[in-house]
């Protein structure tokens, strides 16, 4: 594959936390390349470092050592504000607990990243409405999260992640709070995004049947990659 298509490249990525006097090594040197259009599941038991890895990839956190290139730009040494810009433009988050603003309507929740991106009000509204339509929630724009089902909330969150047309969707246990039927529906949305639009997706999960939807499974163990394999859905 062409070097240009490498979206995520980490070299010797480490992350240490100070827990009192002790230093916890959450990541001990992760080398990974993810290409445009891939659908990757990151697996591993709790404490394996997958959440830490996710935070680093999502530019929410900065590494203790090693390097990280996102879309050809080294982000491991960036300032807070620069990271905020990267999060806004390049990354769309989907969280286990949805993380919608409870007092805001679906439309406003989806508009939020565009507000921080400095998009004008009219365009913002149109794009947010378009994203909600794309996830099948055209008739729920004025509803607040409390008035929606779990599956609908996660769809709003996916619309919010998509609305900025990011390079990657980062999903952190996206079905962790959903029943199995709703989980399947959400997985269908991800699969469709990847198949039809070539959307790059990186998903953290500990459930094998959820990971089965991805085309590549990376397993972390004690802060290092223990396996990395392609699979056919």
């Amino acid at each position, binding site marked *: 594959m062409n070097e240009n298509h490498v979206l995520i490249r980490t070299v010797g990525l480490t992350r240490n936390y100070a827990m009192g006097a002790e230093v916890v090594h959450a990541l001990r040197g992760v080398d990974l390349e993810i290409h445009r259009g891939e659908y990757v599941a990151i697996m591993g038991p709790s404490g394996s470092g997958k959440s830490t890895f996710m935070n680093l990839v999502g530019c*929410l956190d900065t590494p203790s050592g090693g390097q990280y290139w996102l879309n050809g730009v080294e982000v491991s040494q960036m300032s807070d504000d620069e990271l905020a810009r990267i999060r806004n433009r390049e990354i769309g988050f989907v969280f286990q607990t949805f993380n919608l*603003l409870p*007092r805001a309507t679906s439309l406003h929740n989806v508009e939020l990243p565009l507000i921080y991106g400095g998009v004008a009000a009219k365009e913002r509204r149109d794009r947010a409405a378009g994203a909600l339509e794309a996830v099948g929630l055209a008739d729920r724009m004025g509803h607040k999260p409390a008035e929606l089902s779990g599956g609908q909330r996660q769809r709003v969150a996916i619309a919010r992640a998509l609305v900025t047309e990011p390079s990657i969707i980062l999903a952190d246990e996206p079905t962790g709070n959903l029943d199995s039927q709703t989980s399947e529906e959400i997985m269908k949305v991800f699969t469709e995004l990847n198949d039809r639009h070539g959307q790059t997706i990186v998903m953290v999960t500990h459930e094998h049947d959820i990971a089965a939807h991805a085309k590549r499974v990376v397993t972390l163990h004690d802060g290092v990659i223990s396996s990395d394999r392609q699979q056919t859905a």
Partner: protein
Amino acid sequence: MPFLEAVRLALGMIRAQKLKSFFSLVGAFIGVTFLIGVVTIVNGMDRYMKEDFAAKLFGVNTFTLRYRPFVNIGEEPSREQRREWWRRPRLKIADYEFLASHLDLDVLVGVESSSQPEVVVGNKRSRSIEARGVSESHFRIRKIDIAQGRVFTQPEVEHGANVVVIGSEVADKFFEHLDPIGRTIRVGDFPYRIIGVAKSQGKVFGISLDRFVIAPYTSQIKRVVNPHNVVDGIVVKAPDPATMAAARTEVEELMRVRRGLRPGQPDNFTFETADDVLSFWAKIARILYTALPALVGISLVVGGIVIMNIMLMAVSERTREIGIRKSLGARRRDILRQFLVEATTLSTVGAALGIVSGIGLAELVNAATPLPATVSLGSIVVAVFLGVGVGVVSGVYPASRAARLDPVAALRYE
């Protein structure tokens, strides 16, 4: 995030948490109400003292020569002072005539004496009417306009004619529906013919200025109001302050010469002007204006502390929201601005309500008291600035705490 977006968000937050918001803006509210209320009342009193009290009672550019001060302001005079006053020679009609003929400045000179004899018309009688014996210049000096009839003339004064001009309240009291002109009124047992009714002059501190009868000082009532040719005061009205000062110097010199006072000997007479009253009032006003910022300051500081606490609470309550916003690309300054605008909006809304209630307070004072309370634009401007300022100052710390939150920790916060 654009500024207007932040304001909209803040207003939404205030609407969503009405009670909490009310408590947080109550400090700014009280401070501003107080500021506007007090400034309005003091301003009103100031105008009142200058325009009504001083002008009506003492007159503009006017001084009165008396044998001792009639109005004591500030400190009580000492016993020696009182004794010295009693030893002074009284002012006589001859003094007035002397001054009137010797003052060569362009001023009005008049004589005034008053008393409260019984006033009778038919079977109605009163003992609370001021009877004045004056020269014909009195009407011009005291700016008494005539509603009906005329004032008396110099020949009438010279002849001691028993004619009288009555105040509007006296006219209302004795001649309800009748025309008083030409009718007889008995002042201290002397029958007088009414030749004029004065226009109403209103009230000062609730005391009517229209309960008087004015007669020539040479007429019969001189036995009551200025017995033995002793007069209460000799009044000089000048067209401007400079002439007034010059006239005062001239009167002082004339009187000293007339009384044979040697250089170094103090005057044995006194000048009374509106300035005495006004300078005393200025002292009070200065105290009020010095105390005011302290009082307003205290309530604003308390208000600011309340807002700061509420905002710190809001930051910890909304830690997760801050995490979400950061994950979506909010920079530090976006979060900082959001919370700063929220604090400022709170205090500004408080200030706005304070302005409304301050104006209400002023209207109340206007309606309930004789003080002319008008809200000054300046105090509103100051109030708005203070309101915004309190919000900014008390919002900075909580907002910067919010802005510095670590996104990972904030997202994990329950």
